[in-house]
């Protein structure tokens, strides 16, 4: 794991029991994890009474450093020895390292999910809705008498800003073709997962 000067110095301050008492350390650590994992968390969390006597600039520095360290560990799927070694280099004592690793282990899966969901991808299909209709006539043509499907693919943009759903009509044969191809894809997925 390689982190910047800023992060390293922040972690070193966090390691110092002169600046951060054990309870202050615990609170800051938990705050750092919560602010990353909990979408509703905000800066108010740094207002905990135990942290009151610490200079706000220092608090922010250490909070940012801790959060960055957590993210880097998550990004590289770092294991316990790697994290321990790094924190040791930042002058963390055994106890604080243990605490960090325990907290990290607890939140590892959620962290990975969040990190994995960041990124761009083509429009992502989340659902499909369909409508079956029986056409009887148009103003230009009477007695058409044929079934038709209207299919809407519900689509999510990675920014979940817009939902540009894709709608199209098709005949029964075309829908059979579509479903056939999707089944081919699914079968191919199954075979690939067994390799």
């Amino acid at each position, binding site marked *: 794991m390689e982190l910047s000067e800023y992060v390293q110095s922040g972690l070193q301050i966090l390691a110092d029991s002169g600046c951060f008492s054990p309870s202050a350390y615990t609170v800051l650590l938990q705050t750092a994890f919560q602010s990353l994992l909990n979408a509703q968390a905000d800066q108010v969390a740094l207002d905990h009474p135990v942290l009151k006597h610490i200079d706000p600039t220092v608090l922010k520095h250490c909070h940012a450093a801790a959060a960055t360290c957590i993210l880097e560990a998550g990004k590289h799927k770092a294991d316990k020895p790697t994290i321990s070694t790094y924190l040791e280099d930042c002058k963390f004592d055994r106890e604080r390292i243990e605490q960090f690793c325990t907290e990290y282990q607890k939140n590892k899966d959620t962290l990975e999910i969040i990190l994995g969901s960041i990124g761009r991808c083509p429009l992502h299909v*989340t659902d499909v809705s369909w409508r079956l209709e029986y056409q009887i006539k*148009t103003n230009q043509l009477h007695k058409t008498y044929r079934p038709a499907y209207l299919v809407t693919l519900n689509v999510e943009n990675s920014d979940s800003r817009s939902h540009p759903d894709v709608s199209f009509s098709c005949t029964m044969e075309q829908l059979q073709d579509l479903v056939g191809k999707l089944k081919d894809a699914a079968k191919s*997925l199954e075979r690939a997962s067994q390799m």
Partner: protein
Amino acid sequence: MLLVLSEEHKEHLGFLTQVDSAVVGEFGRIAVEFLRKGTNPKIYEGAARKLNVSSDVIQHGVEGLTYLLTEGSKLMISEIDFQDSVLVLGFSEELNKLLLQLYLDNRKEIRSILGELAPKLPSYHSLEWRLDVQLASRSLRQQIKPAVTIKLHLDQNGDQTTKILQTDPATLLHLIQQLEQALGEMKTNHCRRIVRNIK
């Protein structure tokens, strides 16, 4: 159901009695060609010169014929109804037979042309798919994230558009299940009854 022809319409068609059947056949061919590709006024002038009448008369004749054919095709009237509708024009037996034949020969094609005028949504053309596995991203390394990338080809008013979409394995299975249910609907008693009874 009979076709109702206005006086003006009957007058326009009246011209057909003054030419021989080959010409009527030719007019019929022109009428269908115009339905396929759009009108071409030059044809009227050429025919007008050959037959020694004004091009207006030719135009009305062709248009009258076109209307006869499209209305008949639109309503899908039976042979008998078509014959009865034309009877009122007082044409010769030969001309009546000719018109009927023209109607029957071209009905299917005219109906498919008329069908294209209906309001339409983009329609399905085809689909291509690809299996991908995401191994890493800027924010997370060492991933194994399978995904299916789909290229959906749609037609709208003659233009082909393409949409690139992606989905995960679970959603893919869900899509297949939902769409199979949709296909199954046509086979239910409810739908079968409706299809049987609306004719």
